[in-house]
């Protein structure tokens, strides 16, 4: 293995030398392709394709705000009563600031992904741990979401179909999405974003006849403490800090990575907040906390004249579309991160096995109540460790270690020449 690493290394150097003339080439080649003496093997070469700013924003926004169709509203309403609409806003701000800090740290490493940085600058073990933690998190999250969506579909549109069949159908489409990769998913997301925003607006405007603003007071609900606590623990669905810091090289315009993270986080916060206002204003807090899928109940309420009524089946379109995108990205991230953890050159062969695991995991809980308990009590409560704390910690550690090494090198010149060379190039 060492032999092969050495050889590939030589070719990389040669290649880099041939590109030395072009400024632009340097910038692009540093994206996910730089590798130092430690980073041998071909794991950094998983090609994800590139996606633009708007596409990434749409994908991340859809991924995050899809939770609003599931049990998130009722959970938050239970935790914080009338103040629930502030929770997503606060969570979004937390996520945005975490992402900002992570990006500040990553500036030092010239737009390379977080895992690559950890692997090369800190220790391969660190990179592996982060990737595996992410893979596990996304696997569990996707499995739970898949089960919840399956139950939603079964209860709403296909009452006599076995849940396993619904899940398998979902799984087939989702595996296709994961197989096509990030480029395809971002494009589908931007195609559907307009439709989804329009549909959501319709879904929120049509039942406004039941809206009662007085139900929203007292504004703070159970008080500041529960709101802040809820906002802190409910950040696990805000994935931009984690995902974008790893997939940074796949953003077409590197200057706008920060903008993607901030805009998608805040947009999601705003969308969910508006939805929560409408739901609580329509159902009151006590009811919202009890019903499993408040958005579905909201759709059932619609009655505008005799012709426009009971549109809930129509909104299955919205839900399923959002669900497919969400689970597709989840499965893709699982496979991708697992491949990164073990330095595999490809992720696509992992899609099918992970699809099978997803199926099994999503049917491990006996019923939907357990699923909702799991996602509420375990995943959402401790998920922020992966989505928020882990990237923050990893980025800080990377910066500190890199700084210490640089200092050490300055005191002891000539200790590690290839690294210094690479570093200068990366900063150029």
């Amino acid at each position, binding site marked *: 293995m060492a032999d092969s690493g050495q050889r590939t290394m030589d070719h990389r150097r040669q290649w880099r030398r041939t590109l030395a003339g072009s400024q632009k080439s340097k910038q692009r080649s540093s994206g996910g392709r730089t590798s130092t003496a430690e980073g041998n093997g071909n794991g950094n070469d998983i090609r994800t394709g590139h996606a633009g700013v708007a596409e990434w924003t749409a994908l991340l926004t859809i991924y995050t705000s899809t939770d609003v169709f599931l049990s998130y509203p009722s959970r938050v309403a239970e935790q914080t009563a009338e103040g629930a609409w502030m929770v997503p806003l606060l969570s979004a701000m937390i996520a945005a600031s975490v992402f900002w800090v992570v990006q500040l740290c990553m500036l030092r490493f010239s737009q390379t992904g977080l895992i690559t940085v950890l692997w090369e600058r800190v220790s391969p073990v660190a990179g592996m741990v982060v990737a595996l933690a992410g893979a596990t998190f996304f696997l569990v999250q996707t499995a739970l979401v898949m089960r919840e969506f399956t139950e939603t*579909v079964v209860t709403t549109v*296909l009452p006599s*179909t076995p849940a396993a069949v619904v899940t398998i159908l979902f799984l087939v489409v989702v595996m*296709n999405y994961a197989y096509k990769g990030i480029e395809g998913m971002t494009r589908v997301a931007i195609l559907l974003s307009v439709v989804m925003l329009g549909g959501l607006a319709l879904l929120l405007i049509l039942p406004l006849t039941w809206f009662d603003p007085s139900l929203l007071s007292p504004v703070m609900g159970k008080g500041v403490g529960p709101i802040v606590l809820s906002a802190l623990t409910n950040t696990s669905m805000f994935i931009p800090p984690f995902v974008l810091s790893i997939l940074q090289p796949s953003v077409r315009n590197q200057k706008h990575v920060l903008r993607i993270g901030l805009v998608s986080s805040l947009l999601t916060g705003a969308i969910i907040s508006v939805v929560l206002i409408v739901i609580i204003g329509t159902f009151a807090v006590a009811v919202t906390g009890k019903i499993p899928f408040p958005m579905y109940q909201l759709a059932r309420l619609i009655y505008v004249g005799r012709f426009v009524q009971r549109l809930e089946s129509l909104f299955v*379109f919205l839900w399923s*579309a959002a669900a497919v995108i969400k689970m597709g990205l989840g499965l893709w991230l699982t496979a991708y991160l697992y491949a990164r953890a073990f330095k595999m050159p*490809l992720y696509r062969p992992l899609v099918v096995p992970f699809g099978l695991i997803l199926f099994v995991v999503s049917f491990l809980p006996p019923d939907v109540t357990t699923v909702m308990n799991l996602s509420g009590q375990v995943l959402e409560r401790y998920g922020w460790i992966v989505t928020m704390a882990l990237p923050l910690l990893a980025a800080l550690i990377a910066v500190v270690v890199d700084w210490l090494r640089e200092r050490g090198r300055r005191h002891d010149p000539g200790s590690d020449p290839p690294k210094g060379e690479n570093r200068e190039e990366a900063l150029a």
Partner: protein
Amino acid sequence: MTIHDMFRILTVDDSVADEQFELLPQDEWLVREAATNRQKQEQQNLPGRGQGRYRMRGMWVTYGEHFAPSSYAGPVQAPERTAEHAALLRRRADEADGGQSYGAQGSENQAPESSDLFVYHGRRRVRPFSYSYLRQHSDMAGTPNRKPVWTGSVPRLVQSDLASNKLVLERIFYAPKNADIVLRDFRIGGGHPVRAMAVFVDGLADKTIINNHILEPLMVLTGIEPDAPKSVFVSWVKDSLLPGNQVMEYNAWKEVTENILAGNTVLFIEGVSRVLSVETKGWEHRMVSQSMTESVVRGPHDAFTESFRANTGLVRARLRSTKLVTEIMQVGEVASTDIAIMYMDGIVNPQLVAEVKRRLKAIKVDYLPDSGMLEQFLEDKPRAFLPQFLSTERPDRVAYGLNEGQVAIFLGQSPFALLCPTLFWSLLQTSEDAYLRFPYGTFIRGIRFISFLFGLLLPALYIAVTNYHPEMIPTDLMLAIAASRERVPFPVVVEILVMEFAIELIREAGIRIPSIIGPTIGIVGALILGQAAVAAGIISPLLIIVVAVTALCSFTMPNYNLSFSVRILRFGFILAAATFGFYGIILGWMWLLMHMVSLRSFGVPIMAPVAPRRKSAPDALFRSPVYQMEDRPGAFWPLRPKRQQPVTRGWSADTHDSREARRTRERGNA
């Protein structure tokens, strides 16, 4: 996902999926090229390379049969000319004293193949040789009374000896037997006549031109100088005696045959090892007439016809620019067909032109009759549902596409030109949209897009609503549907399938039926579909409306290929809806979206200005005012991204005071 992709999932290595051609801006492309080179180099140096069988299998599947090394099984066997000839060959093989005659280098023991028609004999120029030499050294030596036949390979270059040239021509064109080829011996006139020969294909060449402008001046009106040297003779004939508008000089047999087959008249002159090719193309073809498949109300009505040069001329007549380049090449091993690649230099991305040429050169077929087949050879994903080329018969559309940075491909006698790369939206557009004022254009585009959706989904939605979600529709309507379905014995799916099948039948019969009895189809169709089916109680009247609207929707598709994909996908959605209702439809729709989004036409994502977003004038689903359409479609990465000035209505009072206008004026003053 197609079967092709499913197969690819089963092959472990997927790097080919990322290695497909992608159109990029020039600077990015250079970087990408270097990166792929580096990767290939690395792959070759991997220690376990011999065991990478999955990688190979992946390559095999993607690149298809035409890139596989052994799939093209060598040159095609030309039939033996006569039994007599074959016997001759056998006799020569028996004698086996090769090297006696020119061009017969040990390949006589097999039938002549198309590949050895033009063998290049090293660097040596084949010297002229005489008829007497042939009599002495060839197989004809002992048989003076028989007509000599040229055997062995055809030399590369034309001889100076007219008799041996004639023999070679007879060998190439199977001359006495093949009645189409005319070899006309004559003498270039005057007191000291020179023997010459005109060769052309009867039916391809214009006889009037040959009589009046080749034979007459050469035979009658010539006063040739008897002591002129042979070396200047050809240029003398060319410059002074031949009044043809295009006269070219050649000396290789390959060019000679191509010229003859293209309808030119080739002139051989005794003692000169060069030929003159006079342009006399004049075969019968349809005149330029009205567009049959893409007719419009507003806009030009002419369409391409079955004449190669007339088609290219129609475009050039519209797009009068020196930047317009037409490159012509030939495809076809046995019978070659002309292919013209047309593009605007300075606008089109050069990488795109290179890719078009690369793909064209890879085509190794015996005969390529139509652009419909060429399209299938060139597509990025041959198994995709959607067309990846815009085939059009409208010269104005081609001219407009060229100006946007596309490449047009014309093939031989095909009345359809191909425009590539193609965006999905342009398949839904007609050229009329642009000629109308923008609100009207947007309106008909909207209608067309809705009809695209309806054509795909309406029957499926009907099934889903009636079978799975009857609560969705208002009660009165539901009662009406139920009442109309009361007498119908079939489930909805069967009803829909039967009616869709009937519609497809009518459609197909309408095309195939002789036009004289055409009106019959209307009567039969109307009777079967409208009256009888309902009266017999096997179809509900409401369903007839659904199916008829769907059929109308698929008729509004401006692109013939797109209407096919709509028709086929519709059946898929019907099945999905029949099995899983709305849920099936939405999953199928998501699948289709992913398919569309990951499809590329010559490296350009076909959903391009929208997903992925690219800089472009707002011309996808809607049409904005023409004075706002400043950008060429950015997905083509044209070298000249703007197509008009930011202020094109500077004379107007409201435009005149606009910010842009002021800025332009200040820039002009400064």
